[in-house]
């Protein structure tokens, strides 16, 4: 079974991003949306965690949320895929289920 995890809170604000990563299984994916897109930026204190996670599962970040916050696509960690709303829909259908973290 594959699961799409979505997270919408900043990793600096609470531990949801880290909990999600620790509970995500290998054939699953994580999509960061809203304030959680901060997680995929280079040179933050979470960059190493994301880099290590990329060995185990796919990580996506929603482009409109990066753009809204002035976060440059050039500074997104390599290996993280930046997607739009249409690909968000595709991801939900490609996985068996979706877990929306609060």
């Amino acid at each position: 079974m594959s699961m799409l995890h979505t997270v919408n809170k900043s990793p600096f604000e609470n531990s949801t991003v880290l909990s999600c990563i620790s509970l995500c299984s290998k054939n699953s994916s994580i999509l960061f949306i809203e304030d959680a897109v901060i997680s995929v930026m280079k040179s933050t204190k979470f960059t190493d965690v994301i880099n290590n996670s990329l060995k185990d599962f796919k990580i996506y970040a929603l482009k409109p949320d990066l753009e809204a916050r002035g976060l440059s696509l050039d500074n997104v960690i390599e290996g993280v895929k930046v997607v739009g709303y249409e690909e968000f829909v595709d991801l939900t259908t490609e996985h068996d289920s979706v877990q929306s973290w609060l």
Partner: protein
Amino acid sequence: MSEQAIIKKFMYVNRKSPYGTIYALESLEVVLITAAFDQDVSLVFTDDGVYQLMKNQNTEGIGMKNFSATYSALGDYEVKKVYIDKESLEERGLSLSDLQELVWEDEDEDYAEKSLINLVSRSELSEIMNNQDVVLSF
């Protein structure tokens, strides 16, 4: 008897990223209102609050109003004390060059533009916070 205007020191502490919650916008509105009442206003950006001042915000994709340009009105409202937490920038891999410039015009010096932004350490911020009459958290 003449009425003496009461001026208090108000500090607004911004700790959240814009758009994910309404706090950033609400804070900005309250700050401008307080400043219009000739109060002594300080504005702090710490933790994820530093993202509020990021350059190149483009909210077309999320269908929300981009209010980042409104911060440039702070100088006109005589809000001249903007403090940015240095450690918060560093742990996010950011520097002042990632943030928009905020200036006020000094009419005593032929309207020279002067920066409102003060980059401060947590210990400096602690001292400034300690000297306020009212601290409001957003």
